[in-house]
């Protein structure tokens, strides 16, 4: 029998479950299933390489789970030259690389860090993955002193780590809000992803929608005639609900307004109800508008790949406004679409605006949207808030009495364009019951749905759920305290990703778009008596459920 060197009592006290610790820089990368999104299909990359030379590369069958990623042999030069080119092109990138003093203000602000506890999800450390290479390659001190200055040689493992962590950033910019230097971490992520693309490192959830949008105008690659069938199908549903057959102009010339929204809302549940809401609103006010199949995806996944790709997809909005002769653009509920519009559109594509375009004026209220003078594009929440403010909508709030609502500020409209009060104003005017979540989780400080920037794919559900914990936790709080049963939002990705988030962290809370609730309360001229909501659920049953 083996002899124990410890007394029994010491043995009893010696249990140790402390995990082994390693320095963060040398923690090995783990590419087990569920830790990465699937790479792009080669044909999508081949297609995009033809459409936009220089942005994408190396189409092939590969998997991040394999040891060999089939990188181009000169990948180090590609990354180095690509980095150099971008440092020269974007002064902001150089500033962001140099100016960080590692004060740590951002460290605990990222939803992925808060939920996962992985230090590499601290924005400062995520950016450090790139800065360490920058120091080695582009600063004198780094070149000479190497690791002493926190510089790192670009090796394959470093590149792989970029892929892991720059695809665990939703570009939500919550960390930027707290940075004393205003470093825009989303732009660091964008640059890292651009460099990865140059080596053919990418994810399909982003690349396929980008290819589809470029080809047919919507993210699923649906052809125009099928798009029209689906639209008619929604009109059937609206007729079943309201007893009224309304019209939805598609690809028609000579209307004042072109309406552009994410195509996800045409195909996906529950986005379709928000889309139906828009159509009903436009009918109620008699808006002179058209939809377009060519510019049917406002949500620009190009933003998540490469600045030129973003520019190309965004240009469709003006191209189609010009072709159809629209004076201005009304934009639907979307997140990153508004980041692109508000921050990049005018600079990138403003010159494409046709002479027929002018500063948007609401044809119903006469309000001049001076804030949209540059882009000629108005957010639907502003537009509807203005209609309500002027008493132009006939609303029956009581239809939404079964709804106990809260509002999730979608990151990009909130932090990217300051759209904070308009959606709340609309919501309070169409619902009798509304409660905000705690103040450090909403408005500018809103917590991301954890599916933004092209990460709303199911194969990384665990990553999304842990990243969604801060939002889910705040939601659970108002659910317990006020009986909140519905979370409204103004983003198509939210409408998809918040469903599992709520099911997991605050079961019983439903997700809805703002204009689904608007249309639910909206009385259309000539409609019949409504007995059901836009989801064709009977009010009677919903109210009875709520009373229980």
């Amino acid at each position, binding site marked *: 029998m083996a002899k124990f060197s410890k007394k029994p009592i010491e043995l009893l*006290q010696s249990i140790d479950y402390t995990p082994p610790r390693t320095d963060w820089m040398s923690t090995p990368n783990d590419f087990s299933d569920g830790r990465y999104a699937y790479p792009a299909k080669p044909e999508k990359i081949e297609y995009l390489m033809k459409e936009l030379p220089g942005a994408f590369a190396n189409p092939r069958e590969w998997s991040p789970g394999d040891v060999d990623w089939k990188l181009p042999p000169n990948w180090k030069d590609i990354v180095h030259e690509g980095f150099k080119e971008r440092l020269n092109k974007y002064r902001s990138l150089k500033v962001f690389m140099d100016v960080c003093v590692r004060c740590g203000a951002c460290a605990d602000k990222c939803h992925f860090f808060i939920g996962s506890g992985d230090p590499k999800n601290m924005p400062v450390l995520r950016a450090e993955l790139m800065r360490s290479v920058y120091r080695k390659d582009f600063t004198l001190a780094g070149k000479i002193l190497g690791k002493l200055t926190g510089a790192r040689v670009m090796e394959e493992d470093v590149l792989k780590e970029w892929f892991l962590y720059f695809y665990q950033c939703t570009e939500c910019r919550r960390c930027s809000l707290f940075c004393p230097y205003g470093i825009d971490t989303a732009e660091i992520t964008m640059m890292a992803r651009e460099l990865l693309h140059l080596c053919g490192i990418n994810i399909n959830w982003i690349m396929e929608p980008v290819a589809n949008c470029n080809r047919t105008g919507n993210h699923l690659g649906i052809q125009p005639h099928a798009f029209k069938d689906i639209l008619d199908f929604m009109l059937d549903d609206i007729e079943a609900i309201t007893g009224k057959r309304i019209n939805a102009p598609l690809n028609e010339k000579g209307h004042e307004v072109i309406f552009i929204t994410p195509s996800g809302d045409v195909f996906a549940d529950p986005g379709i109800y928000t889309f139906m809401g828009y159509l009903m609103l436009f009918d109620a006010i008699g808006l002179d508008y058209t939809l377009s199949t060519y510019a049917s995806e406002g949500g620009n996944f190009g933003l998540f790949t490469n600045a030129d790709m973003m520019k190309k997809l965004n240009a469709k909005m003006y191209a189609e406004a010009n072709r159809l002769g629209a004076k201005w653009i009304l934009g639907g509920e979307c997140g990153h679409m508004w980041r692109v519009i508000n921050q990049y559109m005018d600079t990138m594509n403003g010159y494409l605006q046709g002479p027929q375009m002018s500063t948007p004026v609401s044809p119903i209220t006469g309000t001049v949207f001076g804030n949209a003078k540059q882009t000629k594009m108005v957010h639907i929440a502003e537009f509807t808030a203005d209609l309500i403010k002027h008493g132009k909508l006939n609303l029956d709030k009581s239809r939404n009495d079964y709804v106990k609502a809260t509002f999730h500020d979608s990151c990009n409209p909130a932090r990217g364009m300051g759209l904070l009060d308009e959606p709340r104003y609309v919501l309070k005017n169409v619902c009798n019951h509304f409660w905000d979540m705690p103040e450090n989780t909403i408005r500018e400080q809103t917590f991301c749905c954890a599916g933004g920037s092209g990460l709303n794919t199911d*194969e990384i559900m665990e990553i999304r*759920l842990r990243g969604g914990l801060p939002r889910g936790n705040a939601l659970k709080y108002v659910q317990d305290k006020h009986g909140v049963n519905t979370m409204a939002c103004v983003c198509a990705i939210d409408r998809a990703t918040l469903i599992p988030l709520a099911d997991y962290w605050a079961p019983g809370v439903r997700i809805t778009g703002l204009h689904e609730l608007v249309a639910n309360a909206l009385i259309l001229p000539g409609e019949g008596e409504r007995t059901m909501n836009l989801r064709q659920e009977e009010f009677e049953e919903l109210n009875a459920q709520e009373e229980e």
Partner: protein
Amino acid sequence: MARTEDQRRSPLSDLLASRREPLAERWTELIFGTYPEETQKVWASNRDRFTNPVGEAVRQASREVLDRLLAWDDAEALCRALERLVKIRAVQDFAPSVALSFVFLLKKALREAFAGELDAEGRLAELLAFETRIDNMALLAFDVYFESRRQVFEMRVKEVKRAHANIVRLANKTHGDSSAEEAGKA
């Protein structure tokens, strides 16, 4: 969990209850220890439940679970208390064994605090007897963990279905097969 008063009332209960707070605090500390060092610092220092949901869940769940363990009269309530933490660890980057290791860390905390003292008094068996509750709790935690994981897989499937809901409805309608539409609702 129908038990007699004698079974519920461990001889140790009073002693543990009197030192519940330091015990819970030590357990909390040990659970924090399962996360990287940089993270522990942040989570230990921020007491806001909205900006530090994991840290606060660890703190609160450890206390609730300990109370339930001492009372040992309501399995449902114990599971609910466990769920708070297990649900989080079920989607964090842990192997299942590591995710649930926190349960056994309570044994470590208990032994650190009481083993020496009880050994000296010849009452070590009482501690070992009490620890069977922790073993049982580990089994309950496994149920909660598995249910959380099952939900994750179910949500993945549902999400894929929702993304094309309208196209499937349209396809069914176009082909005029009403039973297909009914099947789609199921």
